[in-house]
């Protein structure tokens, strides 16, 4: 009989020197940003050192003006939501740097789909739930936002320096500071409750 494996849940760094790193501070304050791969259930967390955040709600609309009418004729289709999030991953020791590199690997892997066992083609699309940032919530009791991440950029800052090691043959370079930028389309939550006059939750989007 086949069994289903548990997903991997990866928290923030908790090694012996965590108290002197930003991970300890983040843990104390519960500033923890979590990404969950919907197709597998794997999740990975980072201390939430947010550099920038934007949440844009823009209708897909067409405006036309006519002579003699005070208002433009507006034809609105639907409204889309785009999220842009930049955060830093900082490392204070080789151990933490390796831990963070592994966590970043996991996040980058989440950009890929769950594959078909027969032909290797995408089977479950790589949607990701982002949680842990108080200004990014769907409302309706959810503490996360389901997203389609269009782009993740991984940038290291050479001016901040690196942690190097040659313990392995290929050598290791771990940046002290990595900046990760995420550009995503949010999937809008649907609330079909009978008492709702709009199809989304009453407190959507929840910023506080």
């Amino acid at each position: 009989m086949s069994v289903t494996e548990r997903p991997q849940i990866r928290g923030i760094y908790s090694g012996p020197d965590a108290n002197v790193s930003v991970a300890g501070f983040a843990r104390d304050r519960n500033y923890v940003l979590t990404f969950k791969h919907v197709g597998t259930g794997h999740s990975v967390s980072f201390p939430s050192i947010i550099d920038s955040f934007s949440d844009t709600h823009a209708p897909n609309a067409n405006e036309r003006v006519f002579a003699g009418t005070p208002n433009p004729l507006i034809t609105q289709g639907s409204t889309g939501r785009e999220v842009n999030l930049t955060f830093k991953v900082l490392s204070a020791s080789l151990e933490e740097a390796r831990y963070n590199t592994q966590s970043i690997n996991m996040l980058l892997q989440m950009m890929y789909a769950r594959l078909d066992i027969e032909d290797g083609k995408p089977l479950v699309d790589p949607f990701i739930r982002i949680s842990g940032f108080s200004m990014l919530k769907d409302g309706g009791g959810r503490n996360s936002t389901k997203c389609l991440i269009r782009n993740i950029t991984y940038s290291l800052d050479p001016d901040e320096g690196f942690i190097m090691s040659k313990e392995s043959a290929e050598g290791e370079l771990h940046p002290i500071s990595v900046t990760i930028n995420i550009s995503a389309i949010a999937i809008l939550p649907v609330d079909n409750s009978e008492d709702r006059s709009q199809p989304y939750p009453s407190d959507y989007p929840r910023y506080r």
Partner: protein
Amino acid sequence: MAPYRQFSNVQNLGDKAYFPLRISKTSLEDGERETTRVYERYIFLTSYDESFESNWDVGDRPLGRLNAQYNYKQTIRKVSIGFKMPARNVAEAKKNLDFCSGLANLVYGDYARVGDGFAYQGANLKNKIKFGNLLRNELCYFEEFSFIPNMEAGVYEYNGTEVGVVARQNENSPPTVGQLQEEYFQNDRGPDGLIKETDYVYHNQKGKVYPREINVTLSAVIVVDQGDLLGFGGPKRGVEHQKRWSQNTNRDWPHGTGPIPVLRYMYPTNNVTPIAEGEEEALTDEEIIQRYIDERRLQISERGNLNIIE
């Protein structure tokens, strides 16, 4: 003397503590990939960016419908790397230029010799790039190479000043500074030699200049080798292990993490028993705490208390 590679301080430090940027040209014959040429230097990194772009088909959204139909197509990994190449002497400056010539060459398409002419084979997908644990000998397509000599840093110049008054045998005039420095460097360089490594600052080629510093940027699309798949599950994993990373190589991806073991979902699966939902397993403390918090919808307050999320 052994061929000169790079300034000795850089070379020694690099050999001990760093790793070079290595670009390899390969050929694929009878399904076997062979390395045909290698370009390798220690570089001074100035920027490094990777992007993972996912491509989706976005269906039409009928009027008023909240979400469109999104269908995933693929994810593309791109890398952009910027670096400086300083030169402490003429020899190093020449080596830097040779290295850059080799890299510039990679951006051009793939051609094959057919009779007296060439047949264009399309995009050149035969190159590999290696930069320590960040780029692990990945097959790639070079999108752009940019070569910017820093003129502010200066150049190594020709020096035709004659040394002494006596011409050598079979020569009409005494040797020049540039000529002597080239000869000494070629035949007897070193702390106790005729010329020190940093004293080779003139050459004997009229009209040529060799930059003391070059800035380079290189952009590439990392491509997946034949038969390789990126994702979770797939044909290389058993039915029970469809949540594991598809490559099944016991190796972190995309970046190396040195000697530490891979995470559980990356383990190779030919010798691991799957862990069922509800079955006990050895979790790290971190995983246990995170699971507890997730399952009970808790958050840790500033004072360290656990509260239920509103």
